[in-house]
């Protein structure tokens, strides 16, 4: 099973157990605030975990339960038995979902419907509970008084409050307007009279006849807390569930804009229809491009053209509606474990295509020149003249081939902005969830790297940033005590260094606690006591990248769940890069990812010879065969194998690579047939492995000249695979 999911299940079960424990204790003693706090925190953390594995139904359900507990907590009241039962039922349901996930690996299909059911039960029992305590105004008509456009301008949770102060509020020493002024993030207020028919003459000046509607960019929990002391009727409506909208906040503006184009089209008469269609289409296409949904943008673009030709709105309306139903935000889903994945489509700057076209032109000219040289050779031209001509053309060809390679690589390049721009909001959210304020500064957004690298960087960078916020940046109090500004700063910087792209993540936090790192490493047996003692501080700091390492003392919403920096290291190495860390106590930590500028995947087949694994480039492998050993015959100094009446030279890999020779183990020989230019040759191996796509790193430094080796690559388990160069092997 996915290690991420495994961790989630494990943690969730612990949290459920803890929540049940607390709830049962509350049943005994309903006013135990400590137990109430415990239960609330467990629900809250469970909800956060559900959000991380993208289990929306679970997040939704737990959010509803958490909200109820929060209300009870802030009002200082005791939990009603009915509500307590519903909370326990909610935990049972969650348990069942987890069981289903354990066996199938995915959330059960029935979860959404079960969640709806559970939420209405929770809300129902809360309302019943509230009704017992205070009469409530009826109906939802007052929601019509909200200003939709004002609400649309804000992301995140939004609630509406209706507040009808008791007529004798003034006599109770209560000032309704002061209460309104104290509400969090007010977007707008609408004040009406409870009795619209009242005239100035008949008005009772000391009676409070106000009917107030307030809408706020805040959570229901905060609003309830601010309402303490209100006399009269209050009713709170959540306009969007924050647990679900969190991920959408990044994209909500674009989604809103997209959605509102449907309204624009709805109002379309025959007057100015084409302008309306074209502008709505254009806006929708751009909003989709902004959301990174290029394919949907193309569909909407085509629908716009169709709508314009047919002079009717329906093709465009349908296309936008389809785009909206699949408008799932990408940011949270990207948290899936890192795999090197290729983007399906790539937008390329025209000038880069032009460069290719120009090079192709030069190639054609060169082709003609070589044709001319061939003609010269037939006409008995002087060998020296011919040689000079060929040498010249070879030089030109060499230059063109290099330029062509560069030009092709340039096409696969993206600016890092495309991944960086997703972080500022995420950083704010993560920081907010752990009670810190952190500013993210991005630098070098224009720096370019291979599209595949840029795409694959999101998750590792998110982990590093989470770590920096969670463990690097101190709490505002600690920062103040250390004489630092309360707001922490994290710098995300990209820069080009010769053939590498370097990404730095620097925080101005406390630095890595090396003593603690050593202690944890010893405790978790990541390194032996002797090894630890011999380590320099810099080496010890790098232990945080070791598998199974996590120094989090408290489990927070987002990090501290075991998916640590080891996964970052693995992801970076899969991309052919390196990771380095520098930390200064009290000043901060800087993590640098050094990545290759370009990334070319080579398909290889693995084989085993003399107990060692090698990769063979798949494009030169013709077939594999297992033959009887008596078909292998000595020819001259070497061997050959007879396959389908054809004699194929056989290469002894142990000899070619200078490996220890060992006698054949069985009476069967495993042969890989390879094509090298026009020739075919066989390679005897001990074992045939699997095929895989690898990032080939050329040999450099002293090993650059080793013949027969195309390069190396890192396997998933950390071993180095040497990929052979078939052509050089057979030379």
């Amino acid at each position, binding site marked *: 099973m996915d290690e991420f999911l495994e961790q989630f299940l494990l943690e969730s079960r612990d949290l459920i157990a803890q929540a049940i424990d607390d709830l049962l204790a509350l049943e005994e003693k309903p006013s135990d605030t400590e137990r109430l706090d415990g239960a609330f925190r467990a629900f809250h953390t469970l909800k956060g975990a559900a959000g991380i594995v993208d289990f929306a139904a679970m997040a939704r359900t737990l959010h509803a339960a958490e909200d109820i507990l929060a209300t009870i907590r802030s009002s200082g009241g005791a939990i009603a038995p009915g509500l307590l039962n519903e909370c326990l039922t909610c935990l049972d349901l969650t348990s069942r979902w987890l069981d289903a996930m354990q066996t199938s690996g995915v959330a059960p299909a029935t979860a959404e419907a079960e969640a709806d059911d559970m939420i209405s039960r929770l809300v129902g029992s809360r309302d019943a509970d509230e009704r017992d305590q205070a009469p409530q105004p009826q109906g939802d008509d007052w929601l019509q008084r909200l*200003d939709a*456009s004002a609400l649309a301008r804000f992301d995140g949770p939004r609630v509406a409050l209706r507040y009808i102060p008791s007529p004798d509020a003034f006599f109770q020493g209560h000032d309704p307007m002061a209460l309104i002024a104290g509400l969090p993030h007010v977007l707008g207020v609408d004040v009406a009279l409870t009795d619209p028919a009242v005239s100035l003459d008949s008005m009772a000046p000391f009676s409070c006849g106000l009917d107030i509607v307030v809408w706020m960019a805040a959570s229901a929990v905060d609003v309830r807390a601010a309402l303490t002391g209100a006399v009269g009727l209050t009713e709170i409506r959540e306009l969007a569930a924050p647990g679900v909208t969190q991920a959408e906040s990044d994209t909500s*503006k674009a989604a*809103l804009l997209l959605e509102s184009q449907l309204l*624009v089209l709805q*109002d379309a008469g025959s007057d100015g229809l*084409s*302008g*309306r269609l074209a502008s709505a*289409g254009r806006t929708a296409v751009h909003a989709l491009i902004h959301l990174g949904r290029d394919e949907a943008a193309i569909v909407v673009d085509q629908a716009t053209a169709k709508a314009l030709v047919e002079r009717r709105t329906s093709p465009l309306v349908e296309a936008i509606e389809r785009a909206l139903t699949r408008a799932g935000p990408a940011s949270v889903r990207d948290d899936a474990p890192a795999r090197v994945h290729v983007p399906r489509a790539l937008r390329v700057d025209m000038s880069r295509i032009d460069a290719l076209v120009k090079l192709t032109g030069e190639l054609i000219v060169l082709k003609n020149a070589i044709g001319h040289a061939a003609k010269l050779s037939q006409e008995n031209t002087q060998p020296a003249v011919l040689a000079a001509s060929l040498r010249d053309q070879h030089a030109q060809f060499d230059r063109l081939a290099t330029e062509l390679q560069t030009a092709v690589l340039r096409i696969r390049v993206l600016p890092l902005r495309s991944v960086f721009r997703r972080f500022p909001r995420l950083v704010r959210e993560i920081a907010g969830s752990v009670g810190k304020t952190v500013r993210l500064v991005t630098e070098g957004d224009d720096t370019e790297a291979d599209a595949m690298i840029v795409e694959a960087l999101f998750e590792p960078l998110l982990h590093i940033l989470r770590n920096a916020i969670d463990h690097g940046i101190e709490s505002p109090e600690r920062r103040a005590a250390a004489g630092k500004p309360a707001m922490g700063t994290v710098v995300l910087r990209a820069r080009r260094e010769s053939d590498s792209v370097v990404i730095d993540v620097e925080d101005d936090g406390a630095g890595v606690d090396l003593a603690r790192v050593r202690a944890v490493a010893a405790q978790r047996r990541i390194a032996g006591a002797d090894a630890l003692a011999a380590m320099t501080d810099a080496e010890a700091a790098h232990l945080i990248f070791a598998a199974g390492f996590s120094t989090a003392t408290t489990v927070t919403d987002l990090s501290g769940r075991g998916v640590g920096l080891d996964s970052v290291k693995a992801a970076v190495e899969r991309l052919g890069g390196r990771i380095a860390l520098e930390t200064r106590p009290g000043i901060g930590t800087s993590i640098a990812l050094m990545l290759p500028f370009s990334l070319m995947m080579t398909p290889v087949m693995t084989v085993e010879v003399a107990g060692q694994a090698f990769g063979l480039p798949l494009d030169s492998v013709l077939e594999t065969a297992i033959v009887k050993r008596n078909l292998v015959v000595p020819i001259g100094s070497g061997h050959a194998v007879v396959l389908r009446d054809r004699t194929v030279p056989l290469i002894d890999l142990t000899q070619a690579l200078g490996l220890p020779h060992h006698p054949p183990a069985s009476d069967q020989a495993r042969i890989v047939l390879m094509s090298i230019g026009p020739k075919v040759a066989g390679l005897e191996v001990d074992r045939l492995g699997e095929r895989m796509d690898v990032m080939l790193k050329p040999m450099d430094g002293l090993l650059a000249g080793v013949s027969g080796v195309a390069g190396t690559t890192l396997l998933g388990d950390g071993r180095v695979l040497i990929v052979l160069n078939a052509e050089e092997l057979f030379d």
Partner: protein
Amino acid sequence: MTDAAKKQILVVDDAALVRTYYRAALEARGFKVEEALNGLEGLEKILLQSFDLAIVDVNMPQMDGITFVRTVRAMELPVSSTPILMISTEAGPQDIAAARQAGANYYLVKPIKQDTLAEFAAIFCGAH
């Protein structure tokens, strides 16, 4: 990548302070900004040059924003396809409906933060 620098935005508002405020927000993101003092001047500008977005105030002398939008849409020229963002201090449902009926693609209520405006402009232009 869509380059904000190549995107042209027309700001139509009678208040100089508002125009300057919008211009600062948009130019900071690399957009090119043209200004017009009212709907009439806006029409002149939009007919001379194509824009990727027009940001239009509702209440203006000589020609108001609603008339401007309706006129642009009714012309049935390439310019009619210009996306239009209306901005007003009026937040009532009837004001929003009027803007939409005229053919505005979106409606924002003042006051608007510079960041918000720039973000909407970026989405409207498909910029990143």
